[in-house]
């Protein structure tokens, strides 16, 4: 049964590592703003947007031609 003590200590240590990670995450500002990152990821870089748009148009043209 004494092994339980070892297990408890080990589990506490693991939990402490996660707690440390949490504190680090808060301190490094990851919890400062819970809104903008979710929006930011959706912003296109404009250059890329133009390219991808024209690609899509090209593709659809190709598709129409193929159908015809």
């Amino acid at each position: 049964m004494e092994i339980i003590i070892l297990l408890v200590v080990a589990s506490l240590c693991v939990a402490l590592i996660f707690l440390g990670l949490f504190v680090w995450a808060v301190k490094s500002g990851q919890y400062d703003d819970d809104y903008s990152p979710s929006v930011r990821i959706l912003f296109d870089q404009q250059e890329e947007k133009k390219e991808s748009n024209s690609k899509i148009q090209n593709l659809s043209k190709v598709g129409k031609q193929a159908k015809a």
Partner: protein
Amino acid sequence: MSKTCYHCGSPSQSWVRHDDKDFCCEGCVMVYDILKENDMGAYYDIENAPGIRNKKVSVDYYDYLDQEDIKRSVLDFYDGSIGRIKLYIPAIHCSSCIWLIENLHRLHRGVIQSTVNFNRREAAITFNEEEIKLSELMTLLASINYKPHIKTEEQKKSAKRSKQLLIKLGIAGFIFGNVMLLSFPDYLSEDITLNPEIIAWFKWISVLLSIPAMFYSGNEYFIAAWKNIKRGIVSIDMPIAIGITAIFVRSLFEIITNSGSGYLDSLTGLVFFLLIGKWYQAKTYEALSFDNDYSSYFPLGITRIVNNNEEIVPISELQSGDTIQVRNGEIIPADASLLSIGASVDYSFITGESVPVRKEKGDLIYAGGRVLGNALLLEVQKKVETGYLAELWKERSATNEKESMISHTLNVVSKYFTIVIILISTLTGLYWAFVDGSKAVMAFTSVLIIACPCALALSVPFAFGHAGRILGKNHLYLKLTAIIEKLTKVDAIVFDKTGTLTDPEHFEVEFKGDMPDRYMQSMIKSLAHQSRHPLSRALAKHLEKADTFEVFDFEEQEGAGVEAQIMNHQVKLGSAQYVQAENQSGNQSAQVYVRIDERVIGYYTIKNYYRPDWQKMLQTVQQYTDVHILSGDNDAEQEALNAIVQDADKIHFFQTPKDKQAYVQALKAQGKTVMMVGDGLNDVGALKEAHVGIAVADDVHQFSPSSDAIISAGELKYLPRFISFSRASLKIVYASIIISFLYNVVGLSFAVSGQLSPLFAAILMPLSSVSVVVYTSVSVMMAGKRRGL
């Protein structure tokens, strides 16, 4: 669908057609053009009409920021060419804003990187000083109507505080989880036996873990309780601190003497739940800052004139005898005497009086006023003491602080609660001391433990925090959640008319007579522009597109009209009598006659534009409170208002800001709980005087120094809903207080009889906390839903 501005989305009376799109004003067109030139049209794709309308014609000067000392003090990082600054930009409100500000480098290549923190309305901008000076960066942001503010110390501190709270919460959660696991053997029945040595180990680990939970995570309760004791106040922190201490001491005692297993799981759980409540409440008003905004108005530097040369110096370097120049909109930094001929100074931030004070050459002008009109030359009389300005303003906001953060009900309840609990525990202890001495200490502490007002302390933060969040979503922003409670007690509402019931930006203007040509229109506009009278302002706004000429010999006759020499013509605007015209039929007080030289060319009829659904709103509110209407204008609208509020005693015209304040005061003297709904800048005094002052703002991000709440003008029609929702929230709080009392009565009956078992405490205490949290959150949400909020 009605037409709205392509840039800012506001409705308008006059439209500017530009690039096949409709705009409400030239300001919006300008920003649109800047963005279009830089190929940033995506701004309008992300959200519809995301722009900010620049209403106040104010010029801001940022050149002081280029002064070396000042620059170093505001920049977070600076190596001589690369600088980094955090700016507070209250106008940030949607994803388009984030996009625009993060793409600032496209507008100016000197900007290297900018990152927005949406919750704090903050942008961290890295820039190359060789390409763009700090002042230019500020001007750039202002030019697209994202007016930046230098972050104040107060704001920096609050950011730190919220981080700390989060860490405290995380640690408390970690400890709670682990202590609960470690107390698991106690929850099991006695059939399952564990080596007692192991259990002892578990207990000591729990003790070790609970120490940081108490003294780090929960330290604020001890600090607050101690501070309140010193001030002779019993607040909710008191019973919490007593309860936590009692649980800890008792648990420690039991573990040392090996007589029981203690209540450390309850202790850490309690701290954890309390912190969740606190964090939740803090989050509700993180986005809006009310009072601490004022320090962003402080000037850091000022223009000093030495031998006819202008130079910018930090304010702290000013000596008495220095000549300084203060421009339109700037704050006078020191007591000084006026060297210029005459000046208008606006002291509204200090005195609440919105009418500017006229000063003549040689007059002493006190620090803190804001210059209106031309730039002034002043001679400094008194060296600026550090923080003097801040003191001046703080005094005002200190008197503004009507009550502490914590809800009134809660304070009253907890006061009696604490006294009763201490009485019961002492009596219990005494009783057992006579009956069975061995049980005395145990019974005494059991009462303190079980009576720990966890559920009581949680009910208000969760109920009001949730309600505040729902109201915020509906554009009623509260300064403190405790305002909700005051809202429920209101039995007299005073409405300001201009700017509150009516939209100050919009008027219905009609001209009768010989239509003036553009040249004449420009003359009329130039004259109207000089006056602060509402009709003049409406007229100037109506003739926005006309040119502006120089005005000489301007004279204003209060309540009659204005006149001046413009382009060698004598132009007069005012009442029929004033311009010596024949009275026309219709309402006199809404008519402005125009006379150019000897000829009366006609008159303008100017009607207020009421906000939609105002009548319905007033009628609903009137069913359960007194409604009063005060107006700074003339009585032109009397009939329209009488149709709603029949009692003529409750409608007053020609009210100055001071009259309004006195009116509110008089109502208070009658024992009424008064709510003032008014314009944030002109009704400052009355807003402050009232129990609840709500500022109506077309742009809720704007500074509003002394209101308890800000409501977006478009949502004013929902005021009755907001009030009924607040009432429901208060009822929910009462109900949850009763629930937590029931738990306490049950628990106390066990504790008093000396039978409190650890298992019982471990179940009852978290259960009461959780059930109160769930009950308040769910029922507040439902109350909101039912009212369509």
